[in-house]
């Protein structure tokens, strides 16, 4: 059996250092060194996932970009991924191409948002992802390189290069990498994958056009109505024009929720109900782009449009009574895709 032909342009270098210089000087990295994408390494990715090089993973319709498996694999190798991480990257890229995610606008806007890659289900554990202590920080290879691979696809293939097509004012540290896994041990709830409608055996990836995370210290004991009030107050700080909110409960907070017997839906509805202000208050705080659209200034306006736009899950280390909230940009919707794993 012959290996499928790879069609990407081949570069020849005398040594590793020359290769690094080329990719850095050609703005094909995030400023950090890359793993040179050799044909063998790219093939290993494709073979693990059972994908042909020319298979289209997703089409971004605004720029008419047909993202092929080969190019996703090249960028995944560059990011430092192992082949077993590749199915996660593939599903994340496919999710980014869903029209409702609005990849083009979210990756070019002056607003500094990045693609958060959130993994749910048993595959995260299988490939050694971190869902516990320091979950959003460095040191875990899978978390670091899966998030980096998605960002490299976005810059190298899609063209959203900082200071060029990516015009974000401040940028975002997560434009290097922002990827973590749900902590399934901490929660009594079904996994996020199951909650999104996938069967119990499935693992999923959810992409979020994510602003920077805001960690909230919560006080007032173990009553959910108490500590979730702190969270709702912080959510109001995100303003009334965000699309969705990701609420990450530390395992200790999750334990309080478990003990109180609250469902995910109860948490969503409580937060949505609390994170509302009359239109006149949002207008007074200059948080509304078009105040003239509110005819009734006493109308309650939520941080997000409805409870379903609040995604709640647990992640992080055992110690610490914290909740992390991450707003999503403009009208971008979070998108969830099943991770296709070849048996």
């Amino acid at each position, binding site marked *: 059996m012959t290996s499928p032909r790879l069609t990407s*342009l*081949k570069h*020849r*270098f005398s040594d590793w250092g020359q290769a690094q210089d080329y990719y850095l000087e050609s703005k094909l990295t995030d400023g950090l060194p890359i793993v040179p994408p050799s044909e063998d390494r790219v093939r290993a990715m494709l073979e693990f996932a059972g994908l042909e090089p020319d298979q289209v993973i997703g089409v971004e319709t605004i720029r008419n970009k047909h993202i092929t498996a080969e190019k996703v694999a090249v960028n995944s190798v560059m990011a430092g991924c192992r082949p077993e991480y590749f199915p996660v990257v593939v599903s994340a890229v496919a999710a980014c191409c869903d029209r409702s995610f609005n990849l083009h606008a979210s990756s070019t806007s002056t607003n500094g948002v990045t693609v958060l890659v959130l993994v749910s289900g048993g595959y995260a554990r299988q490939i050694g992802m971190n869902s516990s202590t320091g979950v959003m920080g460095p040191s875990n290879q899978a978390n670091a390189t899966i998030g980096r691979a998605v960002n490299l696809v976005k810059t*190298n293939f899609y063209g959203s290069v900082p200071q060029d097509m990516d015009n974000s004012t401040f940028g975002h540290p997560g434009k290097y990498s922002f990827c973590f896994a749900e902590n399934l041990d901490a929660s009594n709830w079904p996994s996020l994958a199951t909650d999104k409608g996938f069967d119990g055996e499935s693992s999923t990836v959810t992409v979020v056009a994510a602003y920077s995370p805001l960690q909230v210290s919560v006080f007032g004991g173990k009553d959910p109505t108490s500590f979730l009030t702190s969270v709702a107050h912080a959510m109001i700080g995100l303003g009334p024009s965000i699309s969705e909110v990701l609420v990450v409960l530390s395992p200790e907070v999750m334990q309080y929720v478990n003990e109180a017997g609250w469902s995910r839906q109860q948490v969503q509805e409580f937060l949505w109900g609390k994170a509302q202000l009359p239109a006149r208050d949002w207008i007074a705080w200059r948080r509304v782009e078009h105040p003239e659209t509110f005819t009734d200034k006493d109308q309650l306006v939520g941080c997000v449009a409805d409870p379903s736009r609040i995604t709640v899950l647990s992640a992080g280390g055992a110690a610490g009574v914290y909740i992390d909230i991450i707003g999503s940009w403009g*009208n971008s919707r979070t998108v969830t895709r099943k991770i296709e794993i070849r048996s």
Partner: protein
Amino acid sequence: MTNLEKMLVALDPRDESDHGPALLATRPPTLNGKTLGLLSNNKPHSEELLQMIAGIMNESYNIKNTVEYNKGSHQWPANSEALKEFASKCDVAIHATAE
């Protein structure tokens, strides 16, 4: 092993497919007597900016009239049907953004 065989070969991560060059719309020989379209992206002040530009153009050319269309959001492309209708009503158009 030859020097060529010892070289490190690595692949290019960019989109190499060729969708053809982006082309500018055909320019009319003159703006005199033309209908000017003003396409707003709904950013605050974008309509004011477009009106200012239309005013300057009116001073320099004999613009027949102007038509306006607000595409409703800077975050999405204009609705294709509405854009076609807008295009059918004007000879030239200006799209602008502002804050």
